[in-house]
């Protein structure tokens, strides 16, 4: 299998604060990878650098063998790497349908009048559970639903790689189950490589074949769910206290 994404020596500094330091990892094409770590570990910052929102202070990012660090987010998206945001971001005044279409047309040439396939959009809405919400206003959805809308819209850009930042935060148990099912479909049927930041351990452990653990900007472990759950350092740094904190979910 080839690697779709390769991160080498990645570093990001905000003023005096080093948010990500000397980070290396690779993502295999078609795989499902989880990134975990306590708050402030630098997970979101890593996504932001891959997606082009932040320029790395040092290091390189290769997408399908090509350097993408320092490219603009829109260019990176057109190359096939899409993301969702940890904080809720939606085009509040659009309807759900318009919102998803925006994903389909955003990167296309501006002179095309119909640059999306209606049936593809419908299919996507069905997949992500928005089939009955065509005309709902995006701003009126609950924030958990808005995040799902973010997923649907990102999917509409037809990515090869999808970065999902705490997509499940705020979902209840049955919603998490549904969401897991959707992610599996996206990965297995559509062949989209997934990288997932998530605090809900069950999601990460059940879904991902590989897990990367960050702490204060550095990678402290990498391996299969089993290896990670047995790793002493990870347990000490993260699992021990966090598992308790999230037991209530």
């Amino acid at each position: 299998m080839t690697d779709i994404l390769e991160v080498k020596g990645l570093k990001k500094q905000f003023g005096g604060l080093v948010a990500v330091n000397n980070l290396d990892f690779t993502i295999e094409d078609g795989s499902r990878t989880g990134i975990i770590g306590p708050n402030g570990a630098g997970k979101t910052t890593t996504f932001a650098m891959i997606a082009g929102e932040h320029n790395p202070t040092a290091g390189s990012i290769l997408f399908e063998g090509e350097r993408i660090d320092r490219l603009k987010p829109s260019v990176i998206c057109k190359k096939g790497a899409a993301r969702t945001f940890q904080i809720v971001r939606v085009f509040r005044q659009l309807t759900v349908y318009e919102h998803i279409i925006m994903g389909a047309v955003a990167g296309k040439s501006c002179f095309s009048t119909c640059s999306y396939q209606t049936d593809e959009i419908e299919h996507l809405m069905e997949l992500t559970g928005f089939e009955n919400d065509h005309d709902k206003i995006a701003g009126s959805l609950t924030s958990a639903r808005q995040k799902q809308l973010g997923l649907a819209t990102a999917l509409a850009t037809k990515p090869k790689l999808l970065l999902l930042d705490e997509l499940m935060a705020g979902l209840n148990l049955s919603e998490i189950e549904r969401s897991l099912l959707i992610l599996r479909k996206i990965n297995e049927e559509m062949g989209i490589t997934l990288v997932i930041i998530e605090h809900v351990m069950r999601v990460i452990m059940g879904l991902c074949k590989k897990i990367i653990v960050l702490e204060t900007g550095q990678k402290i472990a990498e391996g299969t769910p089993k290896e990670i759950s047995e790793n002493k350092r990870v347990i000490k740094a993260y699992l021990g206290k966090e598992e308790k904190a999230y037991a209530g979910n």
Partner: protein
Amino acid sequence: MELAKNNPTLINKKNIMIWATALVVVVAVSFVPVIFSRYVIYVATLALLYAMLTASYDLIFGYTGQLSFSQGAFFGLGAYTSALLTLSGGLNFWLALPLTVIVGFIIAALIGSPALRLRGSYFAVTTFFLAHFVYLVFLNTDKLTGGPMGLRNIQPPDKLWFIDFSQMNVYFYFVLLFTILVLLFLYYLIYKTEIGRRFVAIREDQDLAESLGVNTSFYKVLSFSISGALAALCGSLFAHYFLLLHPSQFAWFTSEMIVIMTLVGGAGTLIGPVLGAAVVTFILELFRYAPELRFIIWAAALIAILVFEPKGLMGMAKRIRFRRSQ
């Protein structure tokens, strides 16, 4: 239904009524010069001109969400460019007009590309200064613009086919009306070609738009440039209607007034700003004999709008309709 889905914010079922109303208004408005006195025609022409100007502004502010205070500057640039092209350059007005539009577009693009790297209030402040800078240029390049003396002897548009503008001001009124319709059609095209969708995306959330593949810096500059070009078009018409130009006509509060008109009508609704322009122009005419008070009333009115009805006339109409349907 398909049309409604394709064009989110401009043309859809709900808006059809508004467009029908607009059409009726246009027809009614075209009778103004037939029925009323010279003075009423003058005010109506002024109202149309400002309506066009606010419509041009609604593209960058209402649709793309970039608060700019330089619309008056592009208006002025258009006016001076067109006047100078005809006066010093000896061009025919009908040639100077498109040239002016192109000049407006290019200048807006040149200034917009660095300035639009700034976001939100930083951009607004920069455009505020731009308006002042352009005013300084008008005031101080004496040789070209006549400086504080202004430009005189500007000629009405050259004869076009059988229409002789020097004979009747009324013709001008119809030219404006026609131009507004062309402008509305242009806006329709912008939305048809999915450019407008991107403008709206940028207004709603620039980072999200960028992450989905919208080249936000390009589209922001595009919106600013089209908006500037259209303001220059208004300026050209203004110059050849009023026939004399003075820097003070384009001081910063001209831009301010455009913003106020847009807000009175309701930003981002296109019809709203056009209505707002008409309403404000007529109200201002009522105060023409108390100019100091007029400015105080403007400012107080703007604050009152912000406090009580920030969505403007269109917002008010929507609310009333909503209440009735309850």
